[in-house]
Protein backbone atom coordinates (compact mmCIF):
# COMPACT_ATOMS: atom_id res chain seq x y z
CA UNK A 1 0.00 0.00 0.00
CA UNK A 2 1.44 3.40 -0.95
CA UNK A 3 0.50 6.79 0.45
CA UNK A 4 -0.32 9.37 -2.19
CA UNK A 5 -0.76 12.29 0.19
CA UNK A 6 -1.34 12.78 3.88
CA UNK A 7 -2.04 15.38 6.54
CA UNK A 8 -3.48 16.12 9.92
CA UNK A 9 -6.51 17.85 11.40
CA UNK A 10 -6.73 18.73 15.09
CA UNK A 11 -9.94 17.90 16.95
CA UNK A 12 -10.01 20.12 20.02
CA UNK A 13 -13.38 21.89 20.10
CA UNK A 14 -16.89 21.08 18.89
CA UNK A 15 -16.47 23.10 15.70
CA UNK A 16 -13.51 20.86 14.78
CA UNK A 17 -15.94 17.93 14.35
CA UNK A 18 -17.59 19.92 11.55
CA UNK A 19 -14.16 20.72 10.05
CA UNK A 20 -13.16 17.04 10.23
CA UNK A 21 -16.33 16.12 8.29
CA UNK A 22 -15.60 18.79 5.68
CA UNK A 23 -11.97 17.68 5.30
CA UNK A 24 -13.05 14.05 4.88
CA UNK A 25 -15.66 15.04 2.29
CA UNK A 26 -13.14 17.03 0.25
CA UNK A 27 -10.58 14.20 0.36
CA UNK A 28 -13.16 11.55 -0.53
CA UNK A 29 -14.18 13.66 -3.53
CA UNK A 30 -10.51 13.85 -4.55
CA UNK A 31 -10.43 10.03 -4.44
CA UNK A 32 -13.43 9.95 -6.76
CA UNK A 33 -15.62 8.21 -4.20
CA UNK A 34 -19.26 7.75 -5.19
CA UNK A 35 -21.89 9.69 -3.27
CA UNK A 36 -23.25 6.85 -1.13
CA UNK A 37 -19.80 5.72 0.01
CA UNK A 38 -18.79 9.32 0.61
CA UNK A 39 -21.87 9.92 2.75
CA UNK A 40 -21.18 6.77 4.78
CA UNK A 41 -17.56 7.78 5.31
CA UNK A 42 -18.38 11.35 6.34
CA UNK A 43 -20.98 10.04 8.81
CA UNK A 44 -18.43 7.62 10.32
CA UNK A 45 -15.97 10.53 10.60
CA UNK A 46 -18.56 12.57 12.45
CA UNK A 47 -19.16 9.78 14.99
CA UNK A 48 -15.45 9.11 15.57
CA UNK A 49 -14.40 12.77 15.69
CA UNK A 50 -17.11 13.40 18.29
CA UNK A 51 -15.84 10.46 20.35
CA UNK A 52 -12.30 11.87 20.17
CA UNK A 53 -13.52 15.20 21.46
CA UNK A 54 -16.11 14.12 24.03
CA UNK A 55 -14.54 10.94 25.47
CA UNK A 56 -10.88 11.45 24.55
CA UNK A 57 -10.75 15.07 25.64
CA UNK A 58 -9.55 16.13 22.17
CA UNK A 59 -7.01 14.70 19.79
CA UNK A 60 -6.19 14.51 16.11
CA UNK A 61 -7.40 13.09 12.84
CA UNK A 62 -4.57 11.91 10.58
CA UNK A 63 -5.57 11.38 6.96
CA UNK A 64 -3.95 9.68 4.02
CA UNK A 65 -5.03 8.98 0.47
CA UNK A 66 -3.69 5.48 -0.16
CA UNK A 67 -3.25 3.26 -3.19
CA UNK A 68 -3.32 -0.51 -3.19
CA UNK A 69 -2.87 -1.83 -6.71
CA UNK A 70 -5.72 -0.30 -8.67
CA UNK A 71 -7.68 0.68 -5.59
CA UNK A 72 -7.65 4.18 -4.13
CA UNK A 73 -8.90 4.81 -0.64
CA UNK A 74 -9.07 7.27 2.19
CA UNK A 75 -7.53 6.16 5.48
CA UNK A 76 -8.21 8.11 8.64
CA UNK A 77 -6.86 7.70 12.15
CA UNK A 78 -8.53 9.28 15.17
CA UNK A 79 -6.23 9.40 18.16
CA UNK A 80 -6.46 10.86 21.62
CA UNK A 81 -4.56 10.69 24.89
CA UNK A 82 -7.73 10.25 26.93
CA UNK A 83 -8.72 7.60 29.48
CA UNK A 84 -9.06 4.82 26.89
CA UNK A 85 -11.86 2.27 26.74
CA UNK A 86 -11.89 -0.11 29.73
CA UNK A 87 -14.25 -2.72 28.26
CA UNK A 88 -13.85 -2.96 24.51
CA UNK A 89 -16.38 -5.72 24.07
CA UNK A 90 -19.02 -3.64 25.81
CA UNK A 91 -18.09 -0.53 23.83
CA UNK A 92 -18.56 -2.47 20.59
CA UNK A 93 -22.10 -3.48 21.55
CA UNK A 94 -24.94 -1.79 19.67
CA UNK A 95 -26.90 0.46 21.97
CA UNK A 96 -24.41 0.57 24.81
CA UNK A 97 -23.26 4.03 25.84
CA UNK A 98 -21.24 5.54 28.64
CA UNK A 99 -22.12 9.11 27.78
CA UNK A 100 -25.89 9.44 27.40
CA UNK A 101 -25.83 8.94 23.63
CA UNK A 102 -27.51 6.23 21.63
CA UNK A 103 -24.53 3.90 21.64
CA UNK A 104 -24.35 3.74 17.87
CA UNK A 105 -21.14 5.73 17.37
CA UNK A 106 -18.43 3.05 17.37
CA UNK A 107 -20.49 0.14 16.10
CA UNK A 108 -22.27 2.31 13.54
CA UNK A 109 -18.99 3.77 12.26
CA UNK A 110 -17.59 0.26 11.88
CA UNK A 111 -20.52 -0.78 9.69
CA UNK A 112 -20.11 2.28 7.47
CA UNK A 113 -16.48 1.70 6.43
CA UNK A 114 -14.44 -1.09 4.79
CA UNK A 115 -11.61 -1.41 7.33
CA UNK A 116 -11.89 -0.66 11.03
CA UNK A 117 -9.16 -1.04 13.62
CA UNK A 118 -9.39 -0.03 17.27
CA UNK A 119 -6.44 0.17 19.62
CA UNK A 120 -7.03 1.23 23.21
CA UNK A 121 -6.12 0.48 26.81
CA UNK A 122 -7.22 2.04 30.11
CA UNK A 123 -5.16 5.18 30.64
CA UNK A 124 -3.39 4.86 27.30
CA UNK A 125 -5.73 6.75 24.99
CA UNK A 126 -7.65 5.50 22.00
CA UNK A 127 -6.73 5.12 18.36
CA UNK A 128 -9.29 4.21 15.71
CA UNK A 129 -8.20 3.71 12.11
CA UNK A 130 -10.75 3.42 9.31
CA UNK A 131 -10.43 3.05 5.58
CA UNK A 132 -12.94 3.36 2.76
CA UNK A 133 -12.00 2.25 -0.74
CA UNK A 134 -13.41 3.67 -3.95
Amino acid at each position, binding site marked *: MTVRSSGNQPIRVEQDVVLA*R*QTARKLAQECGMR*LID*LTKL*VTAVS*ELARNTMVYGGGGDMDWAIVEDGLRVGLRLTFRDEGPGIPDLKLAMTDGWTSGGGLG*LGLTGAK*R*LVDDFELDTAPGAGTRVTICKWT
Partner: protein
Amino acid sequence: MERIPILQMGDFLLVTIQVDMHDQLALTLQDDLSERISRTSARGVLIDISALDMVDSFIGRMIGMISGLSRIMDAETVLVGMQPAVAITLVELGMTLPGVSTALNVERGMKLLRERAYSQ
Protein backbone atom coordinates in the same frame (compact mmCIF):
# COMPACT_ATOMS: atom_id res chain seq x y z
CA MET B 1 -25.19 33.36 19.02
CA GLU B 2 -25.65 31.30 15.85
CA ARG B 3 -29.22 30.02 15.40
CA ILE B 4 -31.33 28.14 12.90
CA PRO B 5 -34.36 30.26 11.94
CA ILE B 6 -37.86 29.00 12.75
CA LEU B 7 -40.62 30.37 10.50
CA GLN B 8 -44.29 30.45 11.40
CA MET B 9 -46.92 29.62 8.76
CA GLY B 10 -50.36 29.75 10.30
CA ASP B 11 -50.60 26.94 12.84
CA PHE B 12 -47.31 25.40 11.78
CA LEU B 13 -43.64 26.01 12.36
CA LEU B 14 -41.18 25.54 9.54
CA VAL B 15 -37.49 24.80 9.97
CA THR B 16 -35.06 24.45 7.07
CA ILE B 17 -31.64 23.26 8.13
CA GLN B 18 -29.15 24.61 5.63
CA VAL B 19 -25.87 24.57 7.50
CA ASP B 20 -23.49 21.84 8.56
CA MET B 21 -24.57 21.81 12.22
CA HIS B 22 -22.21 21.46 15.13
CA ASP B 23 -23.71 19.76 18.18
CA GLN B 24 -24.48 22.89 20.18
CA LEU B 25 -26.40 24.37 17.26
CA ALA B 26 -28.57 21.23 17.13
CA LEU B 27 -29.28 21.47 20.86
CA THR B 28 -30.15 25.17 20.55
CA LEU B 29 -32.64 24.35 17.80
CA GLN B 30 -34.29 21.78 20.05
CA ASP B 31 -34.67 24.34 22.86
CA ASP B 32 -35.85 27.10 20.51
CA LEU B 33 -38.46 24.85 18.95
CA SER B 34 -40.00 23.75 22.22
CA GLU B 35 -40.17 27.36 23.33
CA ARG B 36 -41.81 28.44 20.05
CA ILE B 37 -44.35 25.60 20.15
CA SER B 38 -45.35 26.72 23.62
CA ARG B 39 -45.46 30.44 22.74
CA THR B 40 -47.36 30.10 19.44
CA SER B 41 -49.54 27.06 20.31
CA ALA B 42 -48.37 25.57 17.02
CA ARG B 43 -50.12 22.40 15.88
CA GLY B 44 -47.26 21.07 13.83
CA VAL B 45 -43.56 21.33 13.01
CA LEU B 46 -42.07 20.70 9.59
CA ILE B 47 -38.33 20.06 9.46
CA ASP B 48 -36.76 20.22 6.01
CA ILE B 49 -33.39 18.48 5.79
CA SER B 50 -33.07 18.44 1.99
CA ALA B 51 -29.91 20.55 2.26
CA LEU B 52 -28.25 18.20 4.75
CA ASP B 53 -25.74 15.88 3.11
CA MET B 54 -25.13 13.95 6.33
CA VAL B 55 -27.17 12.95 9.38
CA ASP B 56 -25.20 11.24 12.14
CA SER B 57 -26.45 9.68 15.38
CA PHE B 58 -26.36 13.02 17.19
CA ILE B 59 -28.54 14.82 14.65
CA GLY B 60 -30.75 11.73 14.40
CA ARG B 61 -31.22 11.77 18.15
CA MET B 62 -32.06 15.48 18.05
CA ILE B 63 -34.74 14.82 15.42
CA GLY B 64 -36.20 12.05 17.57
CA MET B 65 -36.20 14.31 20.62
CA ILE B 66 -37.93 17.17 18.77
CA SER B 67 -40.55 14.75 17.50
CA GLY B 68 -41.13 13.34 20.99
CA LEU B 69 -41.28 16.64 22.80
CA SER B 70 -43.56 18.26 20.24
CA ARG B 71 -45.93 15.29 20.55
CA ILE B 72 -46.28 15.77 24.28
CA MET B 73 -46.86 19.47 23.61
CA ASP B 74 -49.77 18.59 21.31
CA ALA B 75 -47.96 19.25 18.03
CA GLU B 76 -47.03 16.88 15.20
CA THR B 77 -43.58 16.75 13.61
CA VAL B 78 -42.87 15.76 10.04
CA LEU B 79 -39.36 15.36 8.68
CA VAL B 80 -39.05 16.01 4.96
CA GLY B 81 -36.51 15.98 2.14
CA MET B 82 -34.05 13.35 3.29
CA GLN B 83 -31.51 12.60 0.56
CA PRO B 84 -31.32 8.93 -0.52
CA ALA B 85 -27.65 8.57 0.46
CA VAL B 86 -28.47 9.96 3.89
CA ALA B 87 -31.35 7.51 4.32
CA ILE B 88 -29.18 4.53 3.35
CA THR B 89 -26.44 5.64 5.75
CA LEU B 90 -28.86 6.20 8.64
CA VAL B 91 -30.31 2.71 8.32
CA GLU B 92 -26.84 1.16 8.13
CA LEU B 93 -25.83 3.19 11.16
CA GLY B 94 -28.68 1.47 13.01
CA MET B 95 -30.95 4.48 13.18
CA THR B 96 -34.42 4.08 11.76
CA LEU B 97 -35.97 7.05 13.57
CA PRO B 98 -38.87 5.20 15.20
CA GLY B 99 -41.82 7.44 15.96
CA VAL B 100 -40.72 10.14 13.52
CA SER B 101 -43.14 10.89 10.67
CA THR B 102 -41.49 11.52 7.32
CA ALA B 103 -42.56 12.79 3.91
CA LEU B 104 -40.64 13.00 0.67
CA ASN B 105 -40.92 16.76 0.21
CA VAL B 106 -42.28 19.95 1.78
CA GLU B 107 -45.58 19.81 -0.12
CA ARG B 108 -46.43 16.29 1.01
CA GLY B 109 -45.19 17.11 4.50
CA MET B 110 -47.53 20.09 4.80
CA LYS B 111 -50.43 17.98 3.55
CA LEU B 112 -49.67 15.34 6.18
CA LEU B 113 -49.45 17.97 8.92
CA ARG B 114 -52.81 19.51 7.95
CA GLU B 115 -54.51 16.12 7.92
CA ARG B 116 -53.13 15.20 11.31
CA ALA B 117 -53.70 18.56 12.98
CA TYR B 118 -57.27 19.08 11.79
CA SER B 119 -58.60 15.53 11.91
CA GLN B 120 -58.68 15.43 15.70
